[in-house]
Structures are given as structure tokens and as C-alpha cells.
């Protein structure tokens, strides 16, 4: 398969271009405003891919997105969880949806927690095998960490619910085979994660199962309590960024 991460080290953001070399079809995932839509159009061209959709793992609150700009420039759909409260038209993605790019396929898993509209993308390359090869975990599961629960809604009740959802979501991801690569939307020190997020941008399900502290702290209550203890001030302009990424002008 064709696989190209594009990153912004300043904010610890990752974005991806994934495609099938035979069909020449690809998708861009979580394109960054800092790089601009142009970067993705030209990178896809260099890789020999025609982008057929832009997908976001959730509506981001820590950085500007270029997903809408990219979708408009190429006249392609913008895919988001059906739970995203966006003001523009988007392709509503649901759990179990499969997008086939030739022999590479992308299956949507809804993994709410960081935000209600968080999804993960499970990627399989049928030329290599029938099992998933990697998963893009967005801000659900990080390398050594999990996404914070308070950026979509800072109400204490909402935070608790988000934290409970996050517990289920990251444990659900553990159903994937051990060798599945994990590629989150952040690495290093991102405002969307906490103390334990690794500077390494990727891992595997098996490694995280054994060594991610949040997957090894026992029951739901301990997990929720630990997330509460680690809460920190939101990134500057978080609400404004999320509003802008939702297409809501304030």
C-alpha cells in the first residue's frame, strides 16, 4: 500500500495519506491547517494517488484543520463521524462502514471518548493479508497515553461520560491483533494528551496492551479517576478552534 505520514512537529500533529498503488486511489486523514491543503494535493500527486475522500478522526480542538479546504479544492467528500456537529455538509461515517481503495480497505470504528465524534480507521491491505495491518487511532489511543476527555464539553458530567466512553473505546481497540500498528493523530507533547504521550509517533496494539499505563490500571473507576487527576487547562482558543473546524463562525 502507499503510506505517507505528514507531520507538524510544533504541535505534535500527525496526518496521513493512504492509498492503493494499483487503483491509484487514496485518502487524506486529518490534514493540518499548518501544512495547508496544497501540501496534500502535491504529496498525493508525487505518490501517484488521486485523493477520493478526506477523513477526519474527529473535529479537532487544538489545531486548525485543512480538511474542508482540501475537499473543496478537489471536489471530493469530507468524511466525519455521523456524530460530528458540523455546520457544513459532510459524508457521515458510521461504525462498520468500509471504504475500498482497490485492495486497501479502511473500516470505520466509532471510538468516542476524546470527543463524541471520535473514530478510528482500521486499515487492511488484502494483497498482503486479510487481517488489519494498522489502525489510525486519532485521539482515542496514543502511544503510551489516551486522549483527554474534556475538550468537546467541559461540563463535569460530560467529562465523566467522555472518560467512560474512552475506557470502552481503548479497550475495544485491544480486540485488534497484537501486531496491528497504531498511528495516532498526535505524538510527543500535544495538548490533547497527557504526561505519558511518547515522542515516538507509532506503536503496536500488542506493545500498548502490555505497556500503556491507561490499559494497565485496572477497572473503569480507576481509569476515570486517573483521567480526572491529570486534567489540565485546555489549549488556548480550544473552543474557537473546534468551532472554526466545525464551520461555525462566531
Amino acid at each position, binding site marked *: 500500500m502507499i503510506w505517507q505520514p505528514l507531520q507538524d512537529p510544533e504541535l505534535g500533529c500527525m496526518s496521513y495519506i493512504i492509498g492503493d*498503488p*494499483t487503483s*491509484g486511489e487514496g485518502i487524506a486523514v486529518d490534514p493540518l491547517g499548518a501544512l495547508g491543503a496544497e501540501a496534500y494535493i502535491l504529496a498525493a*500527486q508525487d505518490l*501517484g494517488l*488521486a485523493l477520493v475522500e478526506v477523513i477526519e478522526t474527529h473535529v479537532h480542538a487544538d489545531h486548525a484543520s485543512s480538511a474542508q479546504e482540501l475537499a473543496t*479544492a*478537489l471536489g471530493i467528500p469530507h468524511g466525519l463521524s455521523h456524530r460530528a456537529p458540523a455546520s457544513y455538509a459532510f459524508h457521515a461515517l458510521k461504525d462498520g462502514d468500509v471504504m475500498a481503495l482497490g485492495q486497501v480497505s479502511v473500516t470505520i470504528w466509532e471510538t468516542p471518548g476524546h470527543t463524541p465524534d471520535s473514530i478510528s480507521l482500521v486499515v487492511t491491505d488484502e494483497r498482503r493479508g486479510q487481517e488489519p495491518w494498522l489502525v489510525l487511532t486519532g485521539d482515542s489511543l496514543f502511544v503510551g497515553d489516551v486522549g483527554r476527555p474534556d475538550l468537546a464539553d467541559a461540563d463535569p458530567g460530560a467529562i465523566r461520560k467522555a472518560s467512560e466512553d474512552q475506557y470502552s473505546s481503548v479497550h475495544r481497540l485491544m480486540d485488534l491483533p497484537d501486531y496491528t500498528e497504531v498511528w495516532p493523530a498526535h505524538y510527543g507533547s500535544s495538548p490533547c494528551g497527557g504526561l505519558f504521550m511518547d515522542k515516538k509517533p507509532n506503536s503496536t496494539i500488542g506493545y500498548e496492551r502490555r505497556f500503556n499505563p491507561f490499559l494497565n490500571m485496572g477497572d473503569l473507576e480507576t481509569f476515570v479517576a486517573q483521567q480526572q487527576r491529570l486534567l489540565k487547562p485546555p489549549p488556548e482558543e480550544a473552543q474557537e478552534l473546534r468551532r472554526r473546524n466545525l464551520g461555525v463562525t462566531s
Partner: protein
Amino acid sequence: MTAEELKNLIDANEALVIDVRLGRAFTESHIPGALSAPFSQRGWGAAVAGWLRREAPGKSVVLFGDNKVLAESAQKALDAEQVSVQAIWDGGMGPWAAAGLPIVAVQNVTVDALRQALTDWRVIDVREPYELRSGIIPGAVNIPIGQLTERIGELQPDQRYAIVCASGNRSQSAAAWMAEQGYQVANVVGGMSLWIGGGHPVER
């Protein structure tokens, strides 16, 4: 600019159309006479400018793309090489085809479809002789891509040809060129890697 205006501009200036889209898009459909030079961020401007100075000095140049970023990036790359571009088009083939203007199109055929209807096609394998050890499609004729221009006379205008290579890239260019010469051609998507990978029969 409408597609008709683009056509008039090309005709009036005897302009050279450089198609900067991906090879796949060019093969599927392009303007007759256009040259395929898929834009890339590294080295494209110097390579194309060098070719233009050698092969088409003084020729008016029109860049053909399917989005604004691509067309403008190509223009900037030629500007940097002091090659001026007369016009750029960023609307792709849609408006051109909709206006009923002539196109050169190459069908894509999957390995499964080719296997089903193998007798309808004459298969031309454009790989180099050393690559044939992995096997060829039964009945295929080997014409290495470099010999295609001199051996094109061996082909029949009323025969349908399926062009194959290792992965579908070279066959794409070969098929586009043959279509340009008036032959009925299809490109085998994924080439021998998918034909063999799919368990289809080969001759050695």
C-alpha cells in the same frame, strides 16, 4: 475560459499541451496530441524545460491539469526555468468531454476481465526480456517498450490490444501512445503483479 475557448487558443497558437495530471488520468482520457508529464515537486520544472528547449523551442505551451493547485504549481515550476506558459487549464477533462470535443481514451481492463475474455484480445507485454522469467500471459507477444515505435507496424488496426507490464505503469504510457496512433487498446490494471498474484495461468 470555457473548453471551446481552450480549444481555439490551442489551435490558433499551435500550442503544445502538456498534461500535468497523473499518468492514470491521462491514459483514461486526454486531449489529442497532448504530452503526458505528471507534475512532481522534485525536478519536474527542469526536466520539462530542458525537453521543451531541445524538442520544441519557441513553441507556445498550455498546461492542462485537473485542479488549481496542480496547474499553478506546474506553471510556477516552469516560470522558475524561464519558460513562459501561454495558458493554464485546471478543470480536467469533464468540461472538454461535455463540450463534445475530441478525446483520446484508453480503456482499463482488470486481470479478471481479461482472463474471462482472453480470446477477444491480443496481449502485448511491454516488459524487458529479463522480466519475462516470471511468466507471460498465454499467447502474449513481447515488445519491450523501447521498441514499440519501430515495431508498431506489426500491429493490426482492426485488432483489440491489451497492454501489460509488471505493475501497470509502463503499459499505461504505451497504451496512451498507441491510442494516439489510432489503435484500439486497453491497459491491464496492476499488470503481471496482479495477474500472477490472482493465480491466473502463465506460459514460460
